[in-house]
């Protein structure tokens, strides 16, 4: 009875575009949905550092290296903002990390693909960050206050990520025939996984539930995917690269590009852990976490000793 009234008030706030804040009453499913979505988003930012970290020591110039470092450092920051937002929902950071490491929680499947050449640094910034931006711009209007605020901050920082990637791939596309081929190959490998980053078709999306009613999700997977494709086609054309989809065609009547069928079997296979790098990504995360253990312990011990000294003084 009580809950029914609270639920009504909650929905009224959502409908009036009033943000939900950590101490506000919220339905248990709303809390659970956000815990899952925000932590998954945080894990993606953190795991996403690995494919790019792979190229720091092999960046072709000092400029390229400092840019890549700054970009990856931003992603670490995005992970921090998002874990903080997720923690306001009553679960600790350690619990979220445990869920990632025990594979209870997922992260974006795109990061389970390897980065084989320098052109991949271009493709990742241009396509992977590009797709993430489309999703994150939409999430700036999500109904949970801390998540929306994290998104605003992240979107501000993301704008350079996509541009630096596009600069890399544009540069290579204008280079020697070998370099151009490398750029095209990177596009070929990253195109389909990138457009699948938006998730399954709305018609078979398992996690939607009340996400739309509760305005956690403001646009559907298919709407966001279409936005990304419409933006990106021209960017490929202008640098002389070909998007690897023979069915890609402007549809005058729809005012959008039509595009070919995505391979959802491959998508689910990678989600289930059978992508080329799933194992490596998780093992690396565990190893780094384990190797940092003594640092955390030392910091905690130091803090405690300082506190004790203060008490004595």
């Amino acid at each position, binding site marked *: 009875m009580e809950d029914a009234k609270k639920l009504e008030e909650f929905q009224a706030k959502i409908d009036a575009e009033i943000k939900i*804040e950590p*101490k*506000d*009453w919220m339905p248990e499913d709303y809390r659970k949905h956000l815990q899952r979505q925000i932590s998954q988003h945080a894990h993606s930012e953190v795991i996403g550092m690995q494919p790019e970290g792979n190229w720091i020591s092999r960046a072709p110039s000092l400029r390229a290296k400092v840019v890549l470092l700054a970009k990856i*450092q*931003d992603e670490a*920051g995005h992970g*921090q*903002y998002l874990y*903080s937002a997720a*923690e306001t929902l009553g679960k*600790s*950071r*350690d619990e979220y990390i445990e869920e990632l490491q025990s594979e209870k929680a997922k992260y974006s499947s795109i990061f389970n693909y390897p980065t084989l050449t320098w052109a991949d640094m271009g493709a990742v910034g241009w396509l992977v960050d590009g797709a993430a931006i489309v999703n994150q711009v939409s999430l700036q209007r999500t109904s949970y206050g801390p998540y929306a*605020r*994290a998104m605003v*901050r992240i979107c501000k*920082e993301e704008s350079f990520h996509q541009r630096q990637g596009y600069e890399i791939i544009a540069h290579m596309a204008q280079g020697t025939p070998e370099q151009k081929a490398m750029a095209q190959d990177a596009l070929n490998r990253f195109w389909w996984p990138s457009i699948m980053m938006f998730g399954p078709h709305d018609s078979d999306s398992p996690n939607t539930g009340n996400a739309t009613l509760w305005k956690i999700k403001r646009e559907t997977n298919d709407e966001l995917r279409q936005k990304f494709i419409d933006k990106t086609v021209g960017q490929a054309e202008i640098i002389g690269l070909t998007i690897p989809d023979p069915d890609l065609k402007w549809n005058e009547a729809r005012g959008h590009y039509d595009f070919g069928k995505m391979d959802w079997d491959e998508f689910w296979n990678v989600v289930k852990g059978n992508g080329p790098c799933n194992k490596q990504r998780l093992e690396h995360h565990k190893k780094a976490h384990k190797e940092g*253990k003594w640092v*955390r*312990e030392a*910091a*905690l*011990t*130091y*803090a*405690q000793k*300082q*506190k*004790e000294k203060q*008490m004595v003084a």
Partner: protein
Amino acid sequence: MSKNIKDNQGDVWEVFVQSKPGLPHKHAGSLHATDKEMALQNARDLYTRRNEGTCIWVVPLNAITSSMPEDSESFFDPSDDKAYRHPTHYIMPEGAKHI
């Protein structure tokens, strides 16, 4: 005062950043740290990587007292019926200027 030290990420701190001299410090977000120096350094690295600030405050989360949303109606209601606290409450003589 001997707390068992187990592996964790330290306490939560709230971060307030002043973006320019003369402006108030504004809540930027939170972070984890084990002491105040670490909290300040982490805040700098996390929230001011692009010259967003001229000063940072860090406050342990458990030092903050907040009003509760479910009490906000009764908590804020003393100001509900005091329209005379607003300049628009007063009737000025016609033609009076600069007031």
